[in-house]
């Protein structure tokens, strides 16, 4: 696998044509829009792009007929097929498998001389509920078959577009509409699952770390087998935080160890990034207190995180999970 060179601070991206346009209906303050812009630019690489979207807020907010104007390069259909974008929505859990069908079709056509261009970019997009709850089978088996797709999983810890129901990436005690006040259960080890299933590249980066995120997207598109990129995305509507905090929360989720930046290619040492050593690592309380989904446990009082009396053990549980998560991902990086 070719090593992707670090991007020179967006200069490369600035020259590219975005495929994510005005007209979407994502919430103001939603980090998915940043992800889509990054994907839109990264796929402007001389290759045809096919995007497969499982049902998710990213899908319902960008593919609303008849105003399907959110995807595509330029103000009208481009003159060249390699600049064009084919987008398909299929059911919640199926984006990886549908994308695999797209990839195999392109491959057989290319092998037999019927597709003369470069192999296309085949991108699958799922929410974390779609990918890791109802769609875990699809994710793991597409990886197992080493399908050459780049799967992006938006992690906002809920089924957001259907009203913020529990998803298995939720950190302990996160309130959701189907699990009020949350539970002590730890989230699924989504990174470990994908690595052990055989993914060629697994990463987790919030778009809040913009240069790193762009680099990872590019690396995923270049992966010769299945690349999985988990994209922690603070959900302003579901988590109920103050406007303007999206990027800060995305970075805090990493720095506290709850969703560290991580990347690893199969067979090579991986790395955690932007997670300070334990002594300098921020504790989870500030991060939690900024979000109303934890207000039954901790909330801001006079500008300071204040544990709701009687809930000290719950905050400690979350902190312990964050610490263990860093240790676990450190081991996965060395795996």
């Amino acid at each position, binding site marked *: 696998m070719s090593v992707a060179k670090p991007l020179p601070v967006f200069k490369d991206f600035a020259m590219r044509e975005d495929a994510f346009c005005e007209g979407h209906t994502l919430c103001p303050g939603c980090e998915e829009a940043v992800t889509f812009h990054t994907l839109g630019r990264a796929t402007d690489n001389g290759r045809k792009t096919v995007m497969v979207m499982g049902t998710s807020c990213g899908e319902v907010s960008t*593919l609303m007929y008849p105003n399907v104007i959110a995807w*595509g390069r330029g103000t009208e259909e481009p003159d*060249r*097929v390699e600049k*064009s974008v084919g987008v398909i929505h*299929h059911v919640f859990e199926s984006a990886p498998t549908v994308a695999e*069908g797209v990839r195999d079709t392109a491959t057989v056509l290319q092998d037999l*001389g019927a597709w003369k261009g470069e192999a296309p970019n085949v991108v699958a997009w799922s929410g974390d509920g779609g990918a890791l709850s109802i769609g875990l089978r699809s994710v793991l088996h597409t990886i197992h078959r080493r399908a050459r797709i780049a799967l992006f999983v938006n992690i906002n810890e809920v089924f957001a577009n259907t009203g913020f129901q529990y998803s298995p990436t939720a950190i302990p005690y996160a309130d959701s509409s189907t699990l009020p006040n949350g539970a002590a259960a730890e989230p699924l080890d989504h990174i470990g699952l994908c690595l052990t299933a055989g993914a060629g590249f697994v990463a987790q980066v919030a778009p809040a770390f913009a240069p790193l995120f762009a680099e990872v997207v590019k690396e995923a598109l270049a992966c010769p087998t299945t690349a999985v990129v988990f994209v922690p995305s603070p959900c302003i509507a579901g988590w109920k935080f103050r406007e303007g905090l999206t990027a800060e929360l995305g970075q805090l989720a990493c720095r506290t160890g709850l969703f560290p930046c991580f990347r690893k290619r199969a067979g090579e040492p991986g790395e955690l990034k932007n997670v300070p050593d334990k002594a300098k690592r921020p504790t989870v309380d500030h991060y939690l207190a900024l979000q109303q989904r934890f207000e039954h446990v901790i909330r801001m009082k006079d500008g300071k995180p204040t544990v709701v009396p009687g809930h000290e053990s719950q905050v400690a549980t979350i902190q312990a999970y964050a610490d263990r998560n860093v240790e676990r991902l450190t081991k996965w990086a060395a795996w």
Partner: protein
Amino acid sequence: MSLVQPRNLNGPYGARYDGAIDLGALQARHRTVYPERTRISVDGNVAAAIPFLQWWRSPIVAGFPITPATKWLEYLAAETAGDKTAVQWEGRRVATKRVKLLESEHAAADYMAGVASSCRDLIVGTATSSVGLDHMTESVRSLGASGLGNVVLVNVCRATANYPLCIEGDPSDALAHRDDGFIQVMCRGKQQIYDTLLQLPAVGLHPQVLTPTMPAYYGIKDSHRSGQLWIEPDGAVNAFLEEALALGATRSDPRDQDFLDMGVPGMGGPPGLLDGDTAMGNCVTSAWFQGFKVGQKARIQKALEVLPRVAQLFEAHFGRPGIPFFETHRLDPTPDVALVCMGPDAGTAQQMLPSIEAQTGARVGLVVLRLLSPFPSQALAHALRGVGAVGVVNNAHHSGRGHLALDVVDALAEQGSAPPVESFFCGLGGADVSQATWQLMFKTTLEAARRGRPSRRWHMLHDGLELAEE
């Protein structure tokens, strides 16, 4: 390499880049399996699999095994293993056929959505049965509405669900999925299965139909028993398909409803994901949803016009009848009564017609249904006009009078002055329908004709005995 292609702005579908996919190259690489007309002995699953080897438009099939459909997949896996379908191309051996093994039926249906939407000029298929089809349901219902007429889902009929598990042929699955949006055609016998496969993509891909197809046959009785099959040469198979596809290429028919309900005459169909700048599977509000459904309904109904044209062309090419809406036996002149049935047991009834007439002194006819969806109501009512009573043979469990019984009653009622209809359940779970059962059904239907009304809402029979009463 630059991929500058003529851009064909295509109304609300976006742009199609003509020539981005060079179908001629795909056709040129086809490795012929049957260069000459060949007669072999095969089972039904093999008969349903062979066309996928013969079509140059079908480089990929998808599969997940389930009894009694498994051999369809095993056969294709064996026939494409190793170097069997490979051709020399640009200095290397390249497989022209690929069998994709998925982890479940649901995944197979999802995968077909990816293949079919990538290039709408390809044909992609799979075979499944019973709970396998049920497991696909979420995706199959999406495919049914998708406009992807290049999907062929072979349904090897088997009793649906468990409690109890039964692996023998019973069309519960096909009938439970009548509203999934597929064109469903029931077959009996190896030649019917093979011939039906050859024709259906031309119906599904017609630009005014754009509806996936589901050929079906009974498990075990047809899937596992061998019989003689004439296989047409690859060249003839592909030549017929191209000519049949061209039936819709002129776009000379007035366009009632297109895929997006735009009603624009002459507009081409949607492009694929690889050769188009396009979006499909979008979200809609209820107001737009209704428009999509108007289009979907119009397209599947159009199959009633397109199918006979494809069938006529098939007969001209191969000398065998194309797919009819239904077979008729001794319906002209109008008999006293007729039975309506489907599946392999119809052969028993067909052979018994002279002896039944001799025993009863009445004239009896038989209708064997082929097209299940869209149901050919008007044609069926026309065929049954003047009969004194109709008996409908249901081979699948139903909580009321039976799926077919309700369809037949509806078809007859639509034309007014409907004759009495007796409803029979028999052959459930693939049980044989014995001669005694056929005799009882004809006898009961004749009594209904004399009485002017059915004796009961339904009968459940086996080997000439009533198993249950209403």
